[in-house]
């Protein structure tokens, strides 16, 4: 049996998780704004911001879907140790981590019900980089317009069109993080 390196979590869990949550809240409340979450050294391919989100939000009450190459023993063991979460197929996921292609189709994730729209998945998408350019965003949290390099405008616009149903996104690249709730209008 191999020995997994379980280090690299929050050094001061209560304060670090509070700071990470605050950044996540700011990012989701202001779609397109890119924030930094640092201080975590997770096993690859998990990035710092993605791992910080998971350690802040995930525990035994919710379940994660690891997509594509994120579904490997080192990541599973590290998340199991730090969060105590369960790993589930996409259809049952509260949270999912993966690259954009690995997470498709979005229709496989819970999107809430008209009476309980919050019962939907939150997808953490690993990107190569985040830049404030590309797709035009508008809606709640945005004064006039914002821009973000979204991986697939059409699919994300279709998700937004389902409001109040739909999944919510955090796009991450290394220690960087940007939020995209289902309420954001994409394009024109």
């Amino acid at each position, binding site marked *: 049996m191999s020995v997994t390196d379980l280090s690299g979590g929050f050094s001061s869990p209560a304060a670090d998780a509070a700071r990470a949550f605050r950044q996540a809240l700011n990012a989701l*409340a202001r779609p397109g704004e890119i924030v930094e979450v640092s201080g975590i050294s997770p096993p690859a391919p998990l990035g710092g911001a993605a791992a910080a989100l998971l350690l*802040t*939000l995930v525990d035994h009450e919710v379940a994660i879907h690891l997509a594509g190459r994120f579904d490997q023993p080192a990541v599973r063991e590290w998340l199991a140790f730090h969060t105590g979460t369960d790993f589930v197929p996409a259809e049952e996921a509260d949270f999912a981590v993966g690259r954009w292609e690995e997470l498709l189709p979005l229709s496989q994730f819970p999107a809430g019900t008209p009476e309980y729209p919050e019962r939907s998945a939150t997808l953490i998408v690993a990107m190569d980089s985040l830049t404030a350019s590309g797709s035009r965003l508008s809606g709640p949290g945005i004064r006039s317009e914002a821009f973000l390099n979204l991986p697939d405008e059409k699919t994300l616009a279709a998700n937004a069109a389902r*409001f*109040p149903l739909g999944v919510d996104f955090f796009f991450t690249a290394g220690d960087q993080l940007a939020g995209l709730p289902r*309420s954001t209008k994409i394009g024109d």
Partner: protein
Amino acid sequence: MSDYNFAYLDEQTKRMIRRALLKAIAVPGYQVPFASREMPMPYGWGTGGVQVTASTLVPEDVLKVIDQGADDTTNAVSIRRFFEVTAGVETTTEVPVATLIQTRHRVPETPLTEGQIIVYQVPIPEPLRFLEPRETETRKMHSLGEYGLMHVKLYEDIARHGEIATTYAYPARVSSGYVMDPSPIPKFDNPKLDHSPAIQLFGAGREQRIYALPPWTSVQSLDFEDHPFDPSRADGECALCGSKDSYLDEVITDDAGGRMFICSDTDYCARRSEGAA
């Protein structure tokens, strides 16, 4: 080293509340159920607001707590001290200095700015509750955008009193389509919710609901074309600072009919009085 976990709540509870807060931001105006905890204060004293504040605070925050506009009433003083002890955060009474403001029943007169968070204490989060007591029904009504009953209620006000007689907890429609209860703030404060640069979070402890408004979200008070929304205000000026624009409290000063108006927002009033002196 404090004997409490940071901001009192255990990490498990904070994660649960944080998940609810993010979903509340994603669906503005929709009430997300959460597993409200017992807090070391009675229901009705802001247990919902306190749990939201505890889950949102960071050690670097500067916290302001107001109760009916005042920084120096029991509720405000005890919640401020609660977080001084359990979170070790700095506190203030000044709006421009505060990064997080917890409030009961008022929105500060001083405009909020980008980067600030305001947490409302909410007793009854469901705007339709007095019209339809069944949760199963109100849920259906929200999902269908079926708010005719609320308009009938406001219409009956006009039929009976000649004007909309709802003066606080005045229902408002969020751009997402949901009608929300802005908490029992006077309707004078309703326009401050609309396109606020701050993040607005609402916590109802006893009723176990959290809802939220991201910045720059449209929030329109319900009204009729021929009876437009009127953010009414007592006709007078503050006896202490002379403000003609702020929301006023009427204070009875003796038993011979003496009375005066003063600002309900003590921070606003004190800083105006200082500036004038």
